[in-house]
Protein backbone atom coordinates (compact mmCIF):
# COMPACT_ATOMS: atom_id res chain seq x y z
CA UNK A 1 0.00 0.00 0.00
CA UNK A 2 0.86 3.61 -0.39
CA UNK A 3 2.43 4.24 3.01
CA UNK A 4 5.75 4.61 4.73
CA UNK A 5 5.02 1.75 7.13
CA UNK A 6 7.53 -1.05 6.69
CA UNK A 7 6.56 -4.65 5.88
CA UNK A 8 9.60 -5.99 7.75
CA UNK A 9 8.23 -7.16 11.11
CA UNK A 10 10.20 -5.91 14.13
CA UNK A 11 9.83 -5.80 17.90
CA UNK A 12 8.75 -2.16 17.60
CA UNK A 13 5.74 -3.13 15.47
CA UNK A 14 4.37 -5.02 18.47
CA UNK A 15 4.41 -2.03 20.84
CA UNK A 16 1.07 -0.27 21.29
CA UNK A 17 0.79 2.72 18.95
CA UNK A 18 -0.27 5.06 21.76
CA UNK A 19 2.90 4.40 23.72
CA UNK A 20 5.12 4.95 20.70
CA UNK A 21 3.53 8.29 19.95
CA UNK A 22 3.80 9.40 23.59
CA UNK A 23 7.51 8.49 23.60
CA UNK A 24 8.03 10.34 20.36
CA UNK A 25 6.35 13.40 21.77
CA UNK A 26 8.69 13.33 24.77
CA UNK A 27 11.75 12.85 22.60
CA UNK A 28 10.76 15.71 20.30
CA UNK A 29 10.39 17.99 23.29
CA UNK A 30 13.85 17.04 24.53
CA UNK A 31 15.35 17.63 21.09
CA UNK A 32 13.74 21.06 20.87
CA UNK A 33 14.81 22.15 24.35
CA UNK A 34 18.32 20.72 24.83
CA UNK A 35 21.05 23.18 23.80
CA UNK A 36 23.94 20.91 24.74
CA UNK A 37 25.85 19.22 21.94
CA UNK A 38 26.67 16.01 23.86
CA UNK A 39 23.00 15.51 24.74
CA UNK A 40 21.97 16.00 21.12
CA UNK A 41 24.74 13.66 20.03
CA UNK A 42 23.54 11.02 22.46
CA UNK A 43 19.99 11.31 21.15
CA UNK A 44 21.13 10.72 17.58
CA UNK A 45 23.22 7.72 18.65
CA UNK A 46 20.16 6.33 20.42
CA UNK A 47 18.09 6.83 17.27
CA UNK A 48 20.67 4.97 15.18
CA UNK A 49 20.70 2.18 17.76
CA UNK A 50 16.91 1.90 17.51
CA UNK A 51 17.09 1.41 13.75
CA UNK A 52 19.92 -1.12 14.03
CA UNK A 53 18.04 -3.10 16.69
CA UNK A 54 15.45 -3.85 14.02
CA UNK A 55 17.91 -5.55 11.70
CA UNK A 56 20.01 -4.44 8.73
CA UNK A 57 17.20 -4.55 6.14
CA UNK A 58 15.01 -2.29 8.22
CA UNK A 59 17.90 0.08 8.95
CA UNK A 60 18.64 0.33 5.23
CA UNK A 61 14.99 1.19 4.50
CA UNK A 62 15.18 3.82 7.26
CA UNK A 63 18.32 5.28 5.77
CA UNK A 64 16.67 5.47 2.37
CA UNK A 65 13.80 7.49 3.86
CA UNK A 66 16.34 9.90 5.34
CA UNK A 67 18.58 10.31 2.33
CA UNK A 68 17.01 13.50 0.99
CA UNK A 69 17.09 15.08 4.41
CA UNK A 70 20.74 14.17 4.98
CA UNK A 71 21.76 16.17 1.91
CA UNK A 72 19.76 19.14 3.11
CA UNK A 73 21.20 18.86 6.62
CA UNK A 74 24.72 18.81 5.19
CA UNK A 75 24.03 21.95 3.14
CA UNK A 76 22.52 23.80 6.09
CA UNK A 77 25.44 22.75 8.29
CA UNK A 78 27.98 23.91 5.71
CA UNK A 79 26.22 27.24 5.45
CA UNK A 80 26.28 27.96 9.17
CA UNK A 81 29.87 26.77 9.36
CA UNK A 82 30.88 29.23 6.68
CA UNK A 83 29.03 31.97 8.56
CA UNK A 84 31.41 31.25 11.46
CA UNK A 85 29.04 29.38 13.77
CA UNK A 86 30.23 25.75 13.80
CA UNK A 87 28.48 25.17 17.14
CA UNK A 88 25.09 26.24 15.75
CA UNK A 89 25.77 24.25 12.61
CA UNK A 90 26.27 21.03 14.55
CA UNK A 91 23.25 21.69 16.74
CA UNK A 92 20.90 22.29 13.81
CA UNK A 93 22.09 19.26 11.89
CA UNK A 94 21.83 16.95 14.90
CA UNK A 95 18.36 18.22 15.81
CA UNK A 96 17.04 17.90 12.29
CA UNK A 97 18.37 14.39 11.82
CA UNK A 98 17.20 13.00 15.17
CA UNK A 99 13.78 14.61 15.06
CA UNK A 100 13.03 13.28 11.59
CA UNK A 101 14.67 9.90 12.21
CA UNK A 102 12.68 9.24 15.38
CA UNK A 103 9.42 10.36 13.83
CA UNK A 104 10.04 8.16 10.81
CA UNK A 105 10.84 5.26 13.10
CA UNK A 106 7.43 5.48 14.72
CA UNK A 107 5.71 5.81 11.37
CA UNK A 108 7.62 2.87 9.90
CA UNK A 109 6.77 0.57 12.77
CA UNK A 110 3.07 1.38 13.07
CA UNK A 111 0.51 0.12 10.60
CA UNK A 112 -1.83 2.65 9.04
CA UNK A 113 -4.88 1.02 10.63
CA UNK A 114 -3.33 1.33 14.08
CA UNK A 115 -2.63 5.02 13.57
CA UNK A 116 -6.15 5.76 12.31
CA UNK A 117 -7.54 3.79 15.25
CA UNK A 118 -5.34 5.85 17.55
CA UNK A 119 -6.58 9.10 16.01
CA UNK A 120 -10.12 7.84 16.47
CA UNK A 121 -9.53 6.95 20.14
CA UNK A 122 -7.92 10.31 20.80
CA UNK A 123 -10.90 12.10 19.26
CA UNK A 124 -13.29 9.93 21.26
CA UNK A 125 -11.42 10.84 24.44
CA UNK A 126 -11.93 14.48 23.47
CA UNK A 127 -15.67 13.76 23.24
CA UNK A 128 -15.88 14.17 19.49
CA UNK A 129 -19.33 12.92 18.36
CA UNK A 130 -19.35 9.51 16.68
CA UNK A 131 -20.83 10.98 13.49
CA UNK A 132 -17.87 13.28 13.03
CA UNK A 133 -15.42 10.49 13.71
CA UNK A 134 -17.10 8.31 11.10
CA UNK A 135 -16.85 11.16 8.60
CA UNK A 136 -13.18 11.61 9.32
CA UNK A 137 -12.48 7.89 8.95
CA UNK A 138 -14.32 7.98 5.65
CA UNK A 139 -12.40 11.02 4.42
CA UNK A 140 -9.09 9.40 5.30
CA UNK A 141 -10.00 6.21 3.46
CA UNK A 142 -11.21 8.12 0.42
CA UNK A 143 -8.05 10.20 0.17
CA UNK A 144 -5.90 7.08 0.31
CA UNK A 145 -7.99 5.67 -2.57
CA UNK A 146 -7.86 8.88 -4.60
CA UNK A 147 -4.07 9.39 -4.68
CA UNK A 148 -3.34 6.36 -6.90
CA UNK A 149 -6.51 6.98 -8.92
CA UNK A 150 -5.36 10.52 -9.68
CA UNK A 151 -1.90 9.50 -10.72
CA UNK A 152 -3.41 6.80 -12.93
CA UNK A 153 -5.59 9.40 -14.68
CA UNK A 154 -2.57 11.64 -15.13
CA UNK A 155 -0.69 8.76 -16.77
CA UNK A 156 -3.54 8.05 -19.17
CA UNK A 157 -3.88 11.65 -20.29
CA UNK A 158 -0.13 11.99 -20.66
CA UNK A 159 -0.16 8.95 -22.91
CA UNK A 160 -3.05 10.32 -24.93
CA UNK A 161 -0.94 13.43 -25.41
CA UNK A 162 2.22 11.56 -26.35
CA UNK A 163 0.29 9.40 -28.81
CA UNK A 164 -0.30 12.51 -30.89
CA UNK A 165 2.71 14.69 -30.20
CA UNK A 166 6.47 14.14 -30.04
CA UNK A 167 6.75 16.83 -27.37
CA UNK A 168 6.24 16.36 -23.65
CA UNK A 169 2.79 16.82 -22.20
CA UNK A 170 2.20 20.38 -21.10
CA UNK A 171 0.13 22.02 -18.39
CA UNK A 172 -2.80 21.77 -20.78
CA UNK A 173 -3.64 18.31 -19.48
CA UNK A 174 -4.30 19.77 -16.03
CA UNK A 175 -7.79 20.96 -16.89
CA UNK A 176 -9.17 17.72 -18.36
CA UNK A 177 -7.58 15.94 -15.43
CA UNK A 178 -9.27 18.21 -12.93
CA UNK A 179 -12.64 17.80 -14.62
CA UNK A 180 -12.27 14.04 -14.68
CA UNK A 181 -11.27 13.98 -11.02
CA UNK A 182 -14.24 16.08 -10.00
CA UNK A 183 -16.62 13.86 -11.94
CA UNK A 184 -15.09 10.86 -10.21
CA UNK A 185 -15.62 12.45 -6.83
CA UNK A 186 -19.29 13.00 -7.66
CA UNK A 187 -19.66 9.35 -8.67
CA UNK A 188 -17.99 8.18 -5.49
CA UNK A 189 -20.30 10.39 -3.45
CA UNK A 190 -23.21 8.65 -5.10
CA UNK A 191 -21.76 5.20 -4.37
CA UNK A 192 -21.40 6.26 -0.73
CA UNK A 193 -25.00 7.35 -0.54
CA UNK A 194 -26.12 4.08 -2.12
CA UNK A 195 -24.66 2.19 0.81
CA UNK A 196 -25.83 4.32 3.66
CA UNK A 197 -23.74 7.45 3.38
CA UNK A 198 -22.73 9.40 6.43
Amino acid sequence: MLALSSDIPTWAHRLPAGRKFAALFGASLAIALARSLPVQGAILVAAVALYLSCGPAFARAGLRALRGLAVIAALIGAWHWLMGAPETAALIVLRLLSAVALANFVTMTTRLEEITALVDRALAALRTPAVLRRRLALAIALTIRFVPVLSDKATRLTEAWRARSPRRASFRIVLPMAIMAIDDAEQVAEALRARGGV
Partner: protein
Amino acid sequence: MERSIALIALFAALIGALALLPGLTLGFGVPITAQTLGVMLCGTVLGARKGALAVLLYLLLIAIGLPIAANGGAGLGVFARPSVGYLVGFPVGAFVIGLVSSRFANPMGFWPATLAALVGGLVVINVFGIIGMWIKLDVTLPVAIGYAAPFMPGDVIKAVAAGAITAALWKARPGLAAQRG
Protein backbone atom coordinates in the same frame (compact mmCIF):
# COMPACT_ATOMS: atom_id res chain seq x y z
CA MET B 1 -22.71 15.69 2.78
CA GLU B 2 -21.32 12.70 0.87
CA ARG B 3 -20.46 15.05 -1.93
CA SER B 4 -18.63 17.42 0.40
CA ILE B 5 -16.59 14.60 1.90
CA ALA B 6 -15.72 13.19 -1.51
CA LEU B 7 -14.62 16.59 -2.80
CA ILE B 8 -12.61 17.35 0.34
CA ALA B 9 -10.87 13.98 0.09
CA LEU B 10 -10.27 14.53 -3.62
CA PHE B 11 -8.57 17.86 -3.07
CA ALA B 12 -6.49 16.48 -0.21
CA ALA B 13 -5.35 13.77 -2.62
CA LEU B 14 -4.74 16.40 -5.29
CA ILE B 15 -2.27 18.28 -3.09
CA GLY B 16 -0.57 14.97 -2.44
CA ALA B 17 -0.41 14.09 -6.13
CA LEU B 18 1.04 17.52 -6.94
CA ALA B 19 3.59 17.18 -4.13
CA LEU B 20 4.89 14.06 -5.83
CA LEU B 21 5.82 15.91 -9.00
CA PRO B 22 9.57 16.30 -8.95
CA GLY B 23 10.56 19.61 -7.34
CA LEU B 24 13.80 21.44 -6.81
CA THR B 25 15.08 21.55 -3.25
CA LEU B 26 16.95 24.72 -2.37
CA GLY B 27 20.05 24.74 -0.18
CA PHE B 28 18.29 25.57 3.04
CA GLY B 29 16.00 22.57 2.79
CA VAL B 30 12.75 23.87 1.35
CA PRO B 31 11.74 22.68 -2.11
CA ILE B 32 10.01 24.49 -4.94
CA THR B 33 6.89 22.37 -5.32
CA ALA B 34 3.54 22.28 -7.06
CA GLN B 35 1.86 21.62 -3.69
CA THR B 36 0.99 25.29 -3.33
CA LEU B 37 -1.05 25.06 -6.52
CA GLY B 38 -3.13 22.35 -4.85
CA VAL B 39 -3.59 24.44 -1.71
CA MET B 40 -4.66 27.44 -3.79
CA LEU B 41 -7.19 25.32 -5.69
CA CYS B 42 -8.63 24.11 -2.37
CA GLY B 43 -9.42 27.70 -1.49
CA THR B 44 -10.60 28.88 -4.90
CA VAL B 45 -12.75 25.83 -5.73
CA LEU B 46 -13.95 24.54 -2.35
CA GLY B 47 -14.18 27.87 -0.53
CA ALA B 48 -12.85 28.84 2.89
CA ARG B 49 -14.16 26.18 5.25
CA LYS B 50 -14.05 23.12 3.02
CA GLY B 51 -10.78 24.25 1.49
CA ALA B 52 -9.14 24.52 4.89
CA LEU B 53 -10.59 21.13 5.88
CA ALA B 54 -9.12 19.54 2.76
CA VAL B 55 -5.68 20.93 3.62
CA LEU B 56 -5.98 19.78 7.25
CA LEU B 57 -6.91 16.32 6.00
CA TYR B 58 -3.82 16.37 3.78
CA LEU B 59 -1.63 17.27 6.77
CA LEU B 60 -3.24 14.56 8.90
CA LEU B 61 -2.50 11.99 6.23
CA ILE B 62 1.15 13.06 6.08
CA ALA B 63 1.28 12.74 9.85
CA ILE B 64 -0.12 9.21 9.84
CA GLY B 65 2.45 8.11 7.31
CA LEU B 66 1.36 8.58 3.72
CA PRO B 67 4.29 9.64 1.49
CA ILE B 68 2.53 12.70 0.12
CA ALA B 69 4.63 15.59 1.44
CA ALA B 70 7.12 17.31 -0.86
CA ASN B 71 9.58 14.82 -2.41
CA GLY B 72 7.51 11.90 -1.10
CA GLY B 73 8.14 12.77 2.55
CA ALA B 74 5.92 11.02 5.10
CA GLY B 75 5.18 10.73 8.78
CA LEU B 76 5.66 13.03 11.69
CA GLY B 77 9.23 13.67 10.60
CA VAL B 78 7.94 16.01 7.93
CA PHE B 79 6.85 18.40 10.67
CA ALA B 80 10.40 18.52 11.98
CA ARG B 81 11.81 19.81 8.69
CA PRO B 82 12.67 23.45 7.95
CA SER B 83 9.57 23.69 5.75
CA VAL B 84 7.21 23.18 8.69
CA GLY B 85 6.13 26.83 8.67
CA TYR B 86 4.77 26.42 5.17
CA LEU B 87 2.81 23.34 6.21
CA VAL B 88 1.23 25.26 9.09
CA GLY B 89 0.49 28.12 6.72
CA PHE B 90 -1.27 25.90 4.15
CA PRO B 91 -4.68 25.58 5.87
CA VAL B 92 -4.67 29.24 6.89
CA GLY B 93 -3.79 30.21 3.32
CA ALA B 94 -6.61 28.08 1.87
CA PHE B 95 -9.05 29.60 4.33
CA VAL B 96 -8.00 33.16 3.46
CA ILE B 97 -8.20 32.37 -0.27
CA GLY B 98 -11.76 31.13 0.20
CA LEU B 99 -12.72 34.21 2.19
CA VAL B 100 -11.19 36.68 -0.23
CA SER B 101 -12.72 35.11 -3.34
CA SER B 102 -16.14 34.91 -1.67
CA ARG B 103 -16.20 38.68 -1.48
CA PHE B 104 -16.70 38.81 -5.24
CA ALA B 105 -19.95 38.22 -7.08
CA ASN B 106 -18.27 35.52 -9.21
CA PRO B 107 -15.86 33.83 -6.80
CA MET B 108 -14.76 31.24 -9.36
CA GLY B 109 -14.01 33.79 -12.07
CA PHE B 110 -10.43 34.23 -13.25
CA TRP B 111 -9.67 37.55 -11.58
CA PRO B 112 -11.29 36.90 -8.19
CA ALA B 113 -9.64 33.48 -7.98
CA THR B 114 -6.22 34.78 -9.04
CA LEU B 115 -6.35 37.73 -6.67
CA ALA B 116 -7.41 35.51 -3.77
CA ALA B 117 -4.67 33.01 -4.59
CA LEU B 118 -2.12 35.82 -4.52
CA VAL B 119 -3.31 37.11 -1.15
CA GLY B 120 -3.69 33.74 0.57
CA GLY B 121 -1.20 31.68 -1.39
CA LEU B 122 1.64 34.09 -1.98
CA VAL B 123 1.39 36.36 1.07
CA VAL B 124 -0.13 34.30 3.90
CA ILE B 125 1.64 31.01 3.20
CA ASN B 126 5.02 32.67 2.75
CA VAL B 127 4.65 34.67 5.96
CA PHE B 128 4.15 31.41 7.85
CA GLY B 129 6.99 29.80 5.92
CA ILE B 130 9.37 32.63 6.75
CA ILE B 131 8.54 32.45 10.45
CA GLY B 132 9.11 28.69 10.29
CA MET B 133 12.56 29.02 8.72
CA TRP B 134 13.44 31.90 11.06
CA ILE B 135 12.86 29.62 14.06
CA LYS B 136 13.94 26.30 12.60
CA LEU B 137 17.16 27.42 10.93
CA ASP B 138 18.33 29.84 13.61
CA VAL B 139 18.80 32.74 11.21
CA THR B 140 17.78 36.40 11.44
CA LEU B 141 14.42 37.49 10.07
CA PRO B 142 15.90 39.32 7.03
CA VAL B 143 17.87 36.18 6.11
CA ALA B 144 14.73 34.07 6.41
CA ILE B 145 12.90 36.53 4.14
CA GLY B 146 15.78 36.22 1.71
CA TYR B 147 15.35 32.44 1.75
CA ALA B 148 11.69 32.81 0.78
CA ALA B 149 12.41 35.16 -2.11
CA PRO B 150 13.22 32.50 -4.73
CA PHE B 151 9.73 30.98 -4.28
CA MET B 152 7.93 34.19 -5.19
CA PRO B 153 8.06 34.06 -9.01
CA GLY B 154 6.90 30.44 -8.99
CA ASP B 155 4.14 31.19 -6.51
CA VAL B 156 2.88 34.05 -8.69
CA ILE B 157 2.75 31.71 -11.67
CA LYS B 158 0.91 29.12 -9.56
CA ALA B 159 -1.62 31.73 -8.44
CA VAL B 160 -2.36 32.67 -12.05
CA ALA B 161 -2.61 28.98 -12.97
CA ALA B 162 -4.99 28.41 -10.05
CA GLY B 163 -7.12 31.30 -11.29
CA ALA B 164 -7.20 29.96 -14.83
CA ILE B 165 -7.97 26.38 -13.78
CA THR B 166 -10.71 27.56 -11.40
CA ALA B 167 -12.36 29.66 -14.06
CA ALA B 168 -12.21 26.83 -16.59
CA LEU B 169 -13.62 24.35 -14.06
CA TRP B 170 -16.42 26.74 -13.31
CA LYS B 171 -17.27 26.95 -16.98
CA ALA B 172 -17.15 23.17 -17.43
CA ARG B 173 -18.99 22.32 -14.18
CA PRO B 174 -21.09 25.33 -13.12
CA GLY B 175 -22.59 23.29 -10.28
CA LEU B 176 -19.30 23.57 -8.39
CA ALA B 177 -19.97 27.18 -7.42
CA ALA B 178 -23.00 26.17 -5.37
CA GLN B 179 -21.07 23.80 -3.09
CA ARG B 180 -18.42 26.36 -2.00
CA GLY B 181 -18.30 27.14 1.64
